[in-house]
């Protein structure tokens, strides 16, 4: 916008006439302001062009009319003592000035708050970087004497949260979750974003109390990448419904990503009590969240599986987590396949 370009333009005025055209180019190049007033040249809708042309023609007419009116009014003023004409002119000028001032203020406020360039540096990543960060989020590093580096980007965490929302939706549909007040989509988005933003803020607050060296952005990035483990576990266990498998993955994969976050925080905190408080809280919240996500949408499937298995399995074996333990080893693979097949059958039947 012209207001942001003005100071730089003023500073460059002394550089000579060859830089004169620079001010006009600043607005178009490199700025990502959602500039709804002046569309950039890349968008050339015919409807919009017509609308703009029309507007401009009308404005020119109004200006011409206003000029003609002003000229006529001045002539009249000259003729009479001109009280009426003078007042009309004054009120018109005042209205015009108010309109200009209001428009200027509104456009300044708009360019300040709608400027998404503020977020641009946090999305400056390459696919290879995202891939390596995803893999690193599962590898805890033992070096805790030196503050470990945290990449301050928001693309990876944001995409992981959206992926978790999609996986959660899949899980909710498969388990036929009934949400009475609200919607599935709203619940999924609320849960995932609420966890990411809420727990990040809480841990950041604790970090502030414990004098840990971590910024809010870094905390958001750290927790966001920590959700990669959750995505993997939930993706697998929403499709293969076996409690033993889930507990194994919960400990292994969930544990690994938690250890990674804990190691990073320990490397940035001084003092055993502070480390214990901060890392204990984060570990507890992270692991419990995975547990919650799995079991909140799993109960209904369990109930249906039990009903389907029916008379084939004696009542004592109805508790699903005991099934693999009580069966002979030879029947284990078939049980797993059966469980998966039954889950698919449930889905088919419900459709």
């Amino acid at each position, binding site marked *: 916008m012209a207001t942001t370009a003005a100071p730089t333009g003023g500073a460059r005025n002394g550089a000579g006439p060859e830089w004169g055209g620079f001010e006009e180019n600043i607005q178009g190049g490199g700025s990502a302001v959602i500039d709804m007033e002046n569309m950039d040249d*890349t968008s050339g809708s015919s409807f919009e062009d017509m609308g703009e042309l029309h507007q401009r023609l009308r404005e020119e007419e109004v200006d011409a009319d206003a000029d003609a009116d002003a000229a006529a009014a001045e002539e009249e003023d000259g003729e009479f003592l001109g009280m009426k004409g003078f007042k009309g002119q004054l009120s018109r000028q005042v209205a015009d000035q108010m309109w200009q001032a209001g428009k200027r203020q509104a456009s300044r406020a708009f360019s300040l708050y709608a400027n998404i360039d503020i977020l641009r540096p946090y999305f400056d990543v390459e696919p290879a970087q995202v891939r390596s960060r995803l893999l690193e989020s599962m590898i805890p590093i033992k070096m805790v004497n030196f503050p470990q580096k945290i990449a301050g980007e928001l693309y990876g965490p944001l995409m992981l949260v959206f992926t978790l929302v999609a996986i959660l939706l899949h899980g909710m549909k498969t388990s036929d979750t009934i949400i009475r007040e609200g919607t599935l989509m709203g619940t999924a988005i609320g849960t995932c974003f609420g966890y990411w933003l809420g727990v990040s803020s809480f841990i950041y607050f604790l970090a502030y109390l414990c004098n840990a060296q971590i910024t809010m952005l870094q905390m958001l990035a750290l927790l966001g990448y920590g959700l990669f483990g959750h995505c993997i576990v939930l993706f697998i266990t929403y499709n293969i419904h076996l409690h033993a498998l889930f507990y194994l993955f919960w400990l292994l994969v969930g544990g690994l990503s938690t250890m990674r976050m804990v190691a990073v925080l320990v490397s940035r905190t001084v003092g055993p009590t502070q480390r214990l408080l901060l890392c204990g809280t984060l570990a507890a919240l992270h692991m419990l969240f995975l547990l919650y996500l799995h079991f909140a949408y799993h109960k209904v499937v369990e109930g249906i599986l039990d009903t389907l298995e029916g008379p084939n399995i004696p009542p004592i074996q109805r508790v699903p987590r005991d099934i693999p333990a009580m069966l002979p080893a030879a029947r284990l693979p078939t049980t797993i396949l059966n469980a998966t097949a039954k889950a698919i059958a449930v889905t088919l039947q419900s459709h």
Partner: protein
Amino acid sequence: MAEAEESPGDPGTASPRPLMRDLKAVGKKFMHVLYPRKSNTLLRDWDLWGPLILCVTLALMLQRDPADSEKDGGPHFAEVFVIVWFGAVTITLNSKLLGGNISFFQSLCVLGYCILPLTVAMLICRLVLLAGPGPVNFMVRLFVVIVMFAWSIVASTAFLADSQPPNRRALAVYPVFLFYFVISWMILTFTPQ
């Protein structure tokens, strides 16, 4: 349309002529989506009529019977609307932040128009569901939705990929994939009561 084209600002004419022009433009863009080639038509002359029509059609078809509040897990009209438009806005912001040189409304236009294959899938699913539930029924619907999902992604990538820096195309395409996945999932799991 035997008469010559009037100026669009002519207030004296009846409205059918500019309406036909707009409808023809929308129809032309539908054809571009169904047969995606690398062309600039969607980007050059963007409009939001097509996305609006498609979104309303999809939301109407996905709506559950309001008297049926027991199994309330399905989307309501407003939910589908919100998902489509906020999803499109999020993807647009993401692609702009990644360094794309596409304008806000152009991106909305492309994403909205590329919902067309999924709307067709929804129509087919509703027709197939009239035959009654069953595993064969489900397989047919699954196949149709998967094909249309792939078609949507290919179509939107054909239009959007050129606007991104070449090394970041995957980063820009992934949220598009998620967006159409969510819509496909809503279509696939729709059951009329």
